[in-house]
């Protein structure tokens, strides 16, 4: 279980020295063990920042995060992160990049090679073992980042727009792959996405954030039957699905409109 208690965060502004940029404002949230929770919200509202705080990569200014009852004060081997910007090591091949996480955690050579080859196939990169990142497309790089996190078999998986760079077809395929994988190895997943459909299809619960400073607007429990990967097309066109989509879209549109007005009004005047 992940408990986020009264969490706020701010960065020092780049454009003025004495003002701070408030990014997250009083976030409290509980994420049940084994559940799949998605964050959706306008760009720049602090989703990535929140994910980094949960993983222990940055310390929050106010509040704290508890995982299994213990305060998070740094990354741990039973948690893994998929980064929005892929963050692959340019001097390593695909295979060695996937092995990177296990290597850092001290897994021996043959075991980590086996694990890496295993997930490599699962993300559809078979045959590209010896390619370097600069020889891959954006979507392929993203899948390497995904494979790197999956190969460490984490209990907690934090994914920051992990399918954002994929084309729509592969994206849907990867969604079902992900669900299959999670059925086989139950994990607690925190997932950031800009795709409302993706969030609904994958999640047990969706957390909708306001524009910056990020506050939780609402939680929506998604009560669609599982396993969802079996008849995904039926689920996606079901009445329930469409209702969820309309509801979330409505919330997001409202946020985006107020955000845009805030930004453009002074310039027009």
């Amino acid at each position, binding site marked *: 279980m992940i408990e986020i208690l009264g969490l706020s965060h701010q960065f020092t502004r780049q454009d003025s020295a004495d003002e701070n940029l408030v990014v997250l404002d009083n976030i409290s949230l509980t994420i049940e063990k084994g559940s799949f929770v998605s964050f959706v919200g306008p760009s720049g509202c602090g989703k990535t920042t929140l994910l980094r705080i949960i993983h222990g990569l940055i310390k929050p200014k106010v509040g704290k995060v508890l995982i299994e009852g213990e305060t998070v004060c740094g990354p741990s081997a039973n948690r893994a992160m998929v*980064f929005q910007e892929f963050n692959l090591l340019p001097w390593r091949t695909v295979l060695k990049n996937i092995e990177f996480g296990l290597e850092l955690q001290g897994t021996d050579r043959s075991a980590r090679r086996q694990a890496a080859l295993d997930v490599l196939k699962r993300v559809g990169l078979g045959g590209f073992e010896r390619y370097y990142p600069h020889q891959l497309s954006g979507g392929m790089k993203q899948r390497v980042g995904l494979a790197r996190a999956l190969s460490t078999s984490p209990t907690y998986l934090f994914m920051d727009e992990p399918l954002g760079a994929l084309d729509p077809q592969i994206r849907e395929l990867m969604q079902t792959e992900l669900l299959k994988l999670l059925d086989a190895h139950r994990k607690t997943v925190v997932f950031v996405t800009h795709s409302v459909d993706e969030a609904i299809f994958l999640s047990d619960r969706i957390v909708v954030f306001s524009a910056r400073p990020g506050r939780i607007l609402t939680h929506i429990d998604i009560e669609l039957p599982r396993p969802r990967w079996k008849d995904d097309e039926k689920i996606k066109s079901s009445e329930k699905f469409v209702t969820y989509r309309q509801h979330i879209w409505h919330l997001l549109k409202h946020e985006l409109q107020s955000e845009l007005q805030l930004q453009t009004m002074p310039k027009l005047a």
Partner: protein
Amino acid sequence: MAETQSVKAFERTERAVVPEAEEGSPFRKIWNRHSTAITRIIAAILFFGGWEWAVRSGSVNPLFISSPTMISIRLFEVFADGSIWSHIRASGEIAGLGFVLSVVVGVPLGMLMGRVKLVRDTLEPLIMAKYSSPTVAFLPLLIIWFGIGILSKIVLVFLGGVIVMIINTEAGVANVDRQLVETAKSFTASEYQILSKVVIPSAVPFILTGMRLAVGRILILVVVAELYGSSAGLGYIIFQASANYDTAMVFVGVIILAAAGVVLNALLRAMEIRLTPWTTTLAKW
């Protein structure tokens, strides 16, 4: 009339864009394919031919500029009788030792400077002062400290080489992508693992470039060091030959040095392409 002209003009532009598609004399085809090489060969022939002619016709004294044939003959002679090898070895020893020392000392020092603030704050003014002053100026001091023998020469070469190794390594270490460091941390990397698996590999391209720059400086410094109090070496040959007005021999020394520079540079460049394909394949052209 105007129409045919415009059609001709069209054809001409067509040709310029697609030279392969052009028919015409075989000479023209060869020219289209190898124009750079041909231009260079012709330029070289004109240059060396003109030089040779100027000397033979008596319009310039060979004492000053020698001549291509005289230089070629000397070059052949010194390799044929093997007399040049001891000089190449003498210079190579100084350059090689100086280079190895530069790398062995410069890389760790550069890393320390890039990672440890205390070391950086202490050494930076010193390094910068040294970097901005001509290394050659240290030679008299070095001779006083280390004598006239090989030691002062190696130290001079080392001083010139180590500075670029330090500066390049430091830049490489300081330039490490913070997101990659964060990624390593997210998989629970220790400080040592971050250094060995992220920071050092990302500094490798900088270190290799530093090595190439160091070789260039070292070749210059070897020659300068050998101008004073030597009994062997390419610098010594050049100095002796010029004192004896043996201009062809001066050129022989210069040519060997230039060739060494070209070969070493090409070798290091090949090594860069092999070791750091991610930086070299993209920016090749």
